């Protein structure tokens, strides 16, 4: 994975930058020693590492603004970072850039249940938003699996999802406003506690922009009343096709369950031996359906889902009869990743979305690719919305296996696009899928996206080298109209 070549002139000025940044964020707000910088050299995509030049830990929006204005002035690149749980390398540092870590923005500023929202700083973890309102019977819906550590700021940057997003939406459907600092240090407020955007929906654009457009310093999130009841059903099937058809029929009947997850045999066995969730081991596919709402409604839905399961030949059906049992059903699914970690020295998690009806074909072709690449794969799948998470098993100590795993992952993502889907459902493009963007988009499509970068960060200093396979040059003075034929920049630097 190639990143923009470091600028040696900038590397030489490290001491000067350190002093200037310390003047803005005094005390321990700037990290410069080699050992401490190591803690920031990667996010949760462990395969890529780069020690940053410096790490800055501001505590106020004024400091963020001043740091960015200073970096803008001297041409220093900035990589924003929340909790560093990105699975696509969104927070991978640059050798000639600083990391701007928002961890000290960790306060919940306001709980406003009359307007059903909570105002938080971006370093607050996803789970603590729910903790702040759960005693009043409310919760924050998006629940990425890293929710105990991942930050709301990172969730906004990545437009994070989770297992419940078919029914409750992703981050962008659950935030009402942000305070945003631009690369030149100016501060914008987008949205608030009101519902609809004023003028263009810049909030919609910011969410999921992977730290390329601005740094979020405050977020207003919508909270919902916690469901009265939650129950889970485990349905075992003799083949994956039947499980997929069952999901399609549930939706066709007009039901959107809180969650629908499919696991294949490898994933079932790994999860069962790891947490003993009571999963059946004699099935090819396991469908976990969660239903929530008022008890009468949940009972009704449970009957509907059970009947649909029978119709599609479910060979086993279990219903959670207590909260403990429901959690146990989930324990296996939630432990699927670490469980794979038990049966393989390393694993690589892929994240593409396909139209759900393509599931049988996708799994068949993934199995064929598994033969070709000589690496095993386990499949877990957010079945309701078609978001596929194949886990490729490999051993990084063996020469060439990481590269093979990556090539296998890329082949799966290309397959997702071929089947009418997309490269990433919830983990983001980052550096990981950057060079595959041309598989899904034409150059014209990418140019239109990248031009937005010129509106927010014309010098390309915020998180460069992420999302787009080429750096984009912005025309001078905001005049960005470049006539056709001149768009392609034949001499453009490719990573």
């Amino acid at each position, binding site marked *: 994975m190639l990143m923009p070549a470091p600028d040696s002139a900038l590397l030489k000025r490290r001491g000067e930058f350190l002093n200037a940044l310390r003047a803005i964020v005094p005390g321990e707000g700037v990290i410069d020693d080699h050992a401490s910088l190591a803690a920031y050299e990667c996010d949760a995509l462990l395969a890529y590492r780069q020690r940053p030049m410096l790490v800055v830990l501001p505590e106020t929006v004024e400091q963020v603004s001043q740091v960015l204005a200073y970096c803008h002035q001297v041409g220093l690149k900035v990589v924003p970072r929340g909790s560093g749980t990105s699975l696509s390398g969104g927070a991978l540092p640059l050798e000639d850039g600083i990391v701007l870590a928002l961890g000290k923005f960790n306060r919940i500023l306001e709980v*406003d249940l009359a*307007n059903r929202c909570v105002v938080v700083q971006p370093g607050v973890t996803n789970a603590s938003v729910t903790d702040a309102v759960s005693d009043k*019977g409310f919760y924050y819906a998006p629940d990425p699996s890293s929710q105990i550590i991942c930050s709301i700021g990172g969730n906004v940057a990545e*437009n994070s999802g989770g297992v419940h*997003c078919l029914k409750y*939406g*992703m981050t*962008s459907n659950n935030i009402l406003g942000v305070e945003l600092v631009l690369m030149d240090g*100016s501060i*914008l407020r987008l949205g*608030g506690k*009101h*519902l609809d*955007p*004023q003028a*263009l*929906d*810049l909030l*919609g*654009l910011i*969410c999921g*922009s992977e730290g390329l457009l601005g740094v979020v310093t405050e977020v207003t999130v919508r909270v919902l*009343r916690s469901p009265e009841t939650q129950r889970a059903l485990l349905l075992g099937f003799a083949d994956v096709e039947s499980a997929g058809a069952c999901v399609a*029929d549930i*939706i*066709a009947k*007009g*039901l*959107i369950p809180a969650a629908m997850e499919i696991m294949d045999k490898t994933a079932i066995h790994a999860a069962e031996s790891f947490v003993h969730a009571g999963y059946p081991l004699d099935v090819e596919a396991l469908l976990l359906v969660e239903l929530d*709402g*008022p008890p*009468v*409604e949940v009972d*009704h839905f449970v009957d509907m889902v059970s009947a649909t399961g029978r119709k599609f030949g479910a060979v086993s059906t279990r219903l959670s009869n207590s909260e403990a049992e429901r959690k146990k059903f989930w324990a296996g699914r939630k432990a699927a990743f670490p469980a794979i970690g038990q049966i393989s020295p390393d694993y690589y998690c892929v994240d593409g*979305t*396909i*139209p759900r*009806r393509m599931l049988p074909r996708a799994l068949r072709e993934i199995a064929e690719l598994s033969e070709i690449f000589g690496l095993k794969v386990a499949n877990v799948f957010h079945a309701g*919305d*078609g978001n596929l998470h194949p886990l490729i098993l490999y051993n990084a100590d063996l020469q060439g296996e990481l590269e093979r795993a990556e090539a296998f992952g890329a082949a799966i993502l290309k397959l997702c696009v071929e089947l*009418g889907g*997309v490269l*990433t*459902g919830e983990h*983001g493009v980052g550096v990981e899928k950057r060079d595959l963007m041309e598989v899904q988009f*034409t150059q*014209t*499509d*990418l*140019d*239109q996206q990248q031009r*937005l970068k*010129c*509106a*927010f960060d014309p010098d390309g200093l915020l998180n460069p080298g992420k*999302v787009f396979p080429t750096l984009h040059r912005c025309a001078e003075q905001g*005049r960005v*109209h470049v*006539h*056709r034929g001149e768009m392609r920049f034949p001499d453009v630097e490719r990573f």
Partner: protein
Amino acid sequence: MRAVWKPENVSAVQSSVNDAIRSGYSLEIVGNGSKRQLGRPVDASITLDVSGLKGIQLYEPEELILVVAPGTLLSDVNSLLESHGQHLAFEPPDYGPLWGQAGDRGTIGGAIMSGRGGPRRLTAGAARDFMLGVKAINGSGELFSAGGRVVKNVTGFDLPKLVTGSFGTLCVVVELTLKVLPKAPESATFVLCGLDVDEASTVIQDVFRDMTAQVSSAAFLPMDIACHSSVAEIQSMGESVTLLRLEGFGLSVMTGLDELSKVFRQSASTKILDKELSKVLWKEIGGAHYFALGESPLWFLSVPPACGAHLGKRLAQELNGRFFFDWAGGGIWFETPNNMDADAFRIRQLLAEVTGNDGHATLIRADERIRSVVSPFQPLPQPLALMNQRVRLQFDPDGVFNPGRMYENIHAD
């Protein structure tokens, strides 16, 4: 009389845009024109009528996906979805009657480009939340795509959301991909009669905070609005009505109604409207059809829901107009008798005062003279105005599309 170009397919739209760019023309993009009078009057050389781009290109109910050309009638989209038990959950409103037009003339393109949501927007999300993908032609004449045809996607910048509600000021949309959802089989409306606006607001907040009934929409119609309802049960009541809509499976709706009845029957006289009456009632609320007979300036204010009652009351008292609120207070409709400047300054001042500057007021209906002197879209603070302008230039550098529709053009040169 301005020339009208009416391309019938995507490549003809692209040629039209390229012709306009070459000739230095600007274009006003229209569908069926049901919301054409919303916003600033557009000063363009040519009218680009895209209502010829029609048709459902793909509908996969089990995938929750609809791909449609922008000129397709919204009513056709609704009927198709209805026949599969699905709908557009954000409930796009029909504003045509506000300008004396017949109802149901709007296109899906107009619904998305205006970005407006109806009563269910409160709990189900806005138009932008259901926009998954877009194909469009930018101001350099290039056809581009963004988003995808699946319901879960974070690949690249979210241009489909940005395009939603942009009133044709960024690009000419030629194809839309939308997320559709199953429609609840049953619905009913619980009516509390005779509350004042503050009591209504308290009831609604209590319902959302403490009760398990799944309320999808909540509105308050003062007596002088309720008496214009086309639903006889509401019209004849002679009192204000506080309205709570329940939607879901039969049993859930019944259980919810029971809960509401138990809690409120002591403190107010109540009524229940069945599914058919509910449908009529919430459609007229979404389109603010109570104001359809008048021509006075009409505003929509988007504010934090808990501010709605107080702001609505003050607007009505201080400016001598009529209001009602939807979205649990988050959306206020206000009609002012002031035909000079539509009270723009005073309305925005009151909004800022009551909400602490959290929200905005949009002039939905006013004659052309007022819309040229008063900004129908709330003026933006300077850094935000600049950013809107910069973003717009990245799509349409020469200002070809709908010049001035949202804001007066500031030229970037």
